[in-house]
């Protein structure tokens, strides 16, 4: 377990300046009130922070081809996979705290809408934050096996080609209003039609109401853990076969 944190520390030492740059850009972008006029901008900004930090770390490692050196250290390949997944988890957690904390600071400090309501309100709820971080976690957990199988560039290409049909299916189902029929009136709001991402929040809101907040959060943690468990299993199998 301790080795996993040592590997995360290694990544931190290698990528800290990139992380700082990404954070600065995200905070600066977030300071432009016009850009904060909608949840979509908030979500993109948060994703940029979390995915940007992770992608930067992977890119720096790939650029200097340090994988062979790391694989020569007293570690098993499975530890390297677990440490990367742990790093992704820490970035999601840390990035989530920063982005939601910063959003809260902005809405509390500055009246961003004439009616005084927060433009991020759907996201600044348990189901909002959970839904947002859940989707990011899913995307990262799905990405890691591709990365460990084929490396940064080939793996990313394969990942996006895999996501493409999924995106087309989701967009198509949305057009056909399948989501609306399945999940009910919450999805027929203007917000959902304008910003498809909030549809997930609506689904989570329904789930939370039905299950209660404790069970809802427990199930959510269980689902995310299951994603990452499967991701680690697949990644370990793939990374065990990689040659340097």
């Amino acid at each position: 377990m301790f080795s996993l944190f040592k590997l995360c520390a290694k990544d931190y030492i290698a990528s800290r300046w990139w992380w700082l740059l990404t954070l600065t850009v995200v905070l600066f972008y977030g300071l432009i009130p016009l850009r904060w006029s909608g949840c979509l901008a908030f979500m993109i900004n948060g994703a940029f922070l979390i995915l940007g930090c992770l992608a930067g770390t992977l890119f720096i490692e790939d650029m200097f081809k340090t994988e062979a050196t790391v694989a020569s250290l007293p570690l098993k390949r499975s530890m390297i996979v677990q440490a990367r997944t742990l790093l992704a988890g820490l970035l999601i957690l840390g990035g989530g705290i920063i982005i939601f904390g910063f959003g809260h600071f902005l809405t509390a400090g500055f009246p961003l809408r004439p009616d005084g309501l927060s433009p991020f309100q759907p996201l600044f709820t348990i189901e909002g934050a959970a839904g947002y971080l859940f989707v990011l976690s899913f995307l990262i957990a799905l990405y890691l096996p591709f990365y460990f199988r084929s490396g940064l560039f080939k793996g990313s290409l394969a990942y996006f080609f895999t996501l493409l049909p999924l995106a087309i299916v989701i967009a198509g189902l949305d057009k056909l209003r399948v989501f609306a029929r399945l999940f009910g009136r919450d999805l027929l709001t203007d917000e959902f039609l304008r910003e498809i991402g909030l549809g997930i929040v609506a689904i989570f809101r329904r789930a939370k109401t039905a299950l209660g907040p404790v069970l809802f959060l427990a199930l959510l943690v269980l689902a995310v853990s299951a994603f990452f468990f499967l991701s680690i299993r697949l990644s370990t199998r793939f990374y065990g076969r990689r040659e340097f």
Partner: protein
Amino acid sequence: MPNILEIRNLSKDYGDFKLKSVSFDLPKGTIMGLIGPNGAGKTTVIKLILNLVRKDAGAIRIFGLDNLADEAAVKSRIGFVHDTPLFYERLTLKSIKAQVAPFYKNWDENLFQRLLREFALPPRQIFARLSRGMKMKFALALALSHEADLILLDEPTSGLDPVFRRELLAKLSGIIQDENKSILFSTHITSDLERIADYITFIRDGEVVFSSAKDELLANGGVVKGGNDLLTEETAKFFKGLRRREFGFEALTDDSAAVRRRFGENVVIDKVTLEDIMFFMTRGDRRV
């Protein structure tokens, strides 16, 4: 003398290159030179020991442990230098050390600092700004700073100036003096091995041609020079590698005494060097 490293029937198929059933032992307290032409499989052997590539068959035992089943335990006692030192180039040497050192329980910070001073490496220097030789020195400093029992060096002296090479060889000789540590040293610079190696393993086209004690090789072997009229099907069997020229032949033998008995004073037998062995084994012919 117990073996620190035992390799048995190690095979790896890359498609265009095959490592074929490689076997050799590295006894405790010794230095073994791994020699062979480019693309012979030296780096592949080292990568297989470190599990950087997957073996197709065979077994590697280090300190009596399987290199895969006990991977982390085994690697914690190995110091390595790859043919190209690959670290995060934009970091300072101090930062790279901070990345690597925590993985070794026996990390000796004082020794590391002493080696940096000895190798004239400023800790705050950015790795990318070092010359190839300096990068190699830094990789060596990392490899030597955690009391490793087995040190794997893949072409460590390439890019180093002759003065530092000699100093390094002296240091490596010093490391094995306690008779508990061993060094596997792959190189093209055979003169380095003549200075320090106890054993030589020669690999050609993915196969071990021989793995023997260096002193035995150099004492028994020789470069034979004589007239072409001496070469027949029968006499050719004395030679491991042969080069015919217009005015005579040059050949490598692993048994100078037998050659002397067979040819008498009709041939000249010179002392053999590792470079001669490598040359004749690689480029020499055995046909008459």
